[in-house]
């Protein structure tokens, strides 16, 4: 049973290494999807927004982790 628990915890941990980064990435993807589907944003513009947002969130996350933001 402990092996199963550890496997599940490791599987979850694969995608949730940093909870704040995970949540913000999910919010970013949801926002881009909303803008494309409901607000008439062109898919390609949405794609660039996704790329720029991911890069920005990465930088914010590491600066915060280094305690210097």
């Amino acid at each position, binding site marked *: 049973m402990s*092996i199963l628990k*550890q*496997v599940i915890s*490791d*599987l979850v941990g*694969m*995608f*949730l*290494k*940093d909870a704040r*980064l*995970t949540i913000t*990435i*999910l919010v970013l*993807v949801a926002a*881009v*999807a909303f803008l*494309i589907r409901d607000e008439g944003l062109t*898919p*390609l513009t*949405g*794609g660039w927004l*996704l*790329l720029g947002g*991911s*890069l920005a*969130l*990465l*930088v914010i*996350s*590491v*600066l915060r*982790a*280094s*305690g*210097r933001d």
Partner: protein
Amino acid sequence: MDWSTAAPVVTAAFLASLVEVVEAFTIILAVATLRGWRPALAGTFSALGLLALIVIILGPLLDRVPLHLLQLVVGVLLLLFGLGWLRKAILRAAGVIALHDEEAIFRREQAQLSHEAQLAERSQDWIAGIAAFKAVLLEGLEVVFIVIAVGAGRGLLWPAAGGALAAVIVILSIGALIHRPLAKVPENTLKFGVGVMLSAFGVFWTGEGLGVAWPGADMMLVWFAAAFLATGLIAVALIRARGPEVDT
């Protein structure tokens, strides 16, 4: 098969698997040197058997998922997985957190096994075998995910699996020759590179899943990787310039 499309997939699967196999190999070697190769191999092959079963059961289900949905789900998971790796690699490269030390993990695993074996004198081989089983299963699941994630979106599962298999062969061959933990592998550099590639794939698949037709199609992966690499290196330089404190 178009190699300009397959090459990034095979390379990403190979490099990511290399990191995972090194980590599993360290534990297997710790088990083997402490209790012999029998429990180490028993645990290893049991885990490989279970992994094969998982792939055989789940593999055919992938064909039933609509392509756009598969790209979106896999893309988001890759983005989370890749950015997680990249974040950690940046923090390690900048000295904020300690580097992964295979020698230390090897010694810690041996100490842990010795302690557990003393508590249960009669089942030492069983405990050692379970340790190898867990290591191979956990690292193997990550390899399976990476192979599916980078390969499924373009129907390149077999080339991706080939990349992962090549990584297993490389590490086992080197390991068989030197019989020591592979401490010389530049693990953080590899993780940095893999984090860059998986994040690039993540943005690419998520975009395609949302209906984005990327200009230049698959070639855009190279530009995405360049963007993540440049951003990662700038982040390392920024943190180093400010003088981080090492957190072990």
